[in-house]
């Protein structure tokens, strides 16, 4: 059965990519909120925020990119949930296919959809004056971290996608993820925050990922932040994967 894994995953991936191209509105709504936040923070609040860097949009972009992924994976959970509800999931499961390919197709689709959203947000940031002196290697590192972050959050999204009772439940889990960057170094330096808030902000995953991305963009030495960032991404990925697979096995047996 597993000999068909790649072919089955490719067939199902083709299916959900068609869903994405035919409902382009999901990509637009995914990118709309991060772009609106970026506009508001750069042109409204930005003037009053002292980050110590010369351009606020340069400071802000890493956090906005993470928010883009966090809002994008709500659709991953939504698409999976709709498949579970509609009966097509059962049709696939009753067919002679590699059963895990159903899940992998959703995960890869999520990756593709989020990468498209990230590119859209990045283009808007460039229009707003974002500039980076980084060469090819740091950009590849940025892409690598964002892919890892997307995969980690995607597997997290698979859990509510499989187990939610309602559509709202399937996508509501992403709200805390979207707001996590506000309690981090994404918008303002953590140094101005009061003790406990600062302690939380400096020890949650977003801060280390944002700092690593920012250092890569500005060609600063990345220091330990990048390793902490990678550790968070891989850690979330593994834990989410184990829970998602458990939940999946319960569903199909």
């Amino acid at each position, binding site marked *: 059965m597993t000999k068909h894994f790649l072919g089955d995953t490719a067939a199902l991936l083709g299916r959900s990519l068609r869903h994405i191209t035919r409902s382009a509105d999901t990509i637009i709504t995914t990118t709309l909120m991060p772009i609106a936040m970026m506009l508001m923070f750069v042109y409204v609040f930005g003037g009053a925020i002292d980050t110590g860097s010369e351009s606020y949009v340069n400071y802000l972009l890493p956090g906005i990119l993470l928010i883009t992924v966090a809002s994008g994976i709500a659709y991953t959970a939504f698409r999976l949930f709709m498949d579970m509800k509609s009966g*097509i999931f059962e*049709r696939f*499961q*009753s067919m002679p296919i590699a059963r895990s390919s159903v899940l992998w197709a959703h995960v890869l689709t999520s990756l593709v959809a989020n990468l498209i959203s990230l590119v859209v947000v990045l283009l808007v940031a460039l229009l707003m004056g974002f500039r980076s002196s980084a060469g090819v290697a740091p950009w590849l590192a940025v892409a690598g971290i964002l892919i890892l972050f997307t995969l980690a959050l995607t597997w997290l999204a698979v859990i509510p996608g499989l187990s939610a009772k309602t559509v709202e439940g399937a996508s509501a889990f992403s709200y805390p993820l979207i707001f996590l960057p506000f309690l981090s170094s994404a918008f303002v330096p953590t140094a101005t925050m009061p003790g406990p808030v600062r302690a939380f902000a400096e020890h949650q995953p977003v801060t280390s990922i944002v700092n690593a991305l920012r250092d890569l963009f500005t060609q600063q030495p990345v220091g330990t932040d990048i390793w902490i960032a990678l550790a968070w991404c891989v850690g979330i990925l593994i834990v989410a994967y184990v829970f998602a697979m458990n939940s999946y096995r319960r569903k199909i047996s």
Partner: protein
Amino acid sequence: MTVNEARGPAIHVQGLEKSYKELRVLRGVDFAVARGSIFALLGSNGSGKTTVVKILSTLLKADAGTAGVNGFDVVTRAADVRESISLTGQFAAVDEILSGRENLVLVARLRHLKDPGAIADGLLERFSLTDAGARRVSTYSGGMRRRLDIAMSLIGDPPVIFLDEPTTGLDPQARLEVWQAVKELAGRGTTVLLTTQYLDEAEQLADRIAILHEGRIIVNGTLAELKQLLPPAKVEYVEKQPTLEDVFLTLVGDNGKTGKTGKTGKTGKTGRHGQDRNVGTDA
């Protein structure tokens, strides 16, 4: 037929039990379905018909009892069972965003068949969906959707097909189309397990009918055998009033592929003799 019998029944179920928490849905279900026949599992809502189908199609594990499909045990040989079956669910499991043709191509690819495009075109033709093939399924009518659903089940010619309430929610015309498709299937030697809550559907289609009630099969037999369970029929002549269904089908003209306007549905059995009057078999 002797060869088929040597290979045993297409579906074999013994002592099947299943509970959802406290609720005992199946309490020891036994039945067998001969190869190439249509078997109707009749029961009211919540009687456990869908649970039986889910266990047979390896989507659900039974608490007790054994079940085999095409000679393979559903637990130990689940992969072989999935090679042998096709499931058409209660709610048409088709992809709304894809076109009809894309749905068929997808299933053909997942069944690892050669030339999925040609298979899709053949089935579109056979189910009169060629014109609609390139359209998104979300624009299809209920009957077209169910026809596509059944067409998807036929890909790869599985020897056993499960149809879980195939006509629920369909208008009378679409219902006739589905019946026609099911009859053709059985004509080609496919074994069909059909669940339904419509008595006339079982009467129209099934070689054998089993009634599932409170988690057990309470009767299992041919229509004639089932009828004998009641006191002998008394013959009375009543003037045949057209049913609303007859009126509807006559007025809208097109009657699917049956071409027997007004002599279908509830009056199908007697209508075939072309009588003006109906022979009632009231008990």
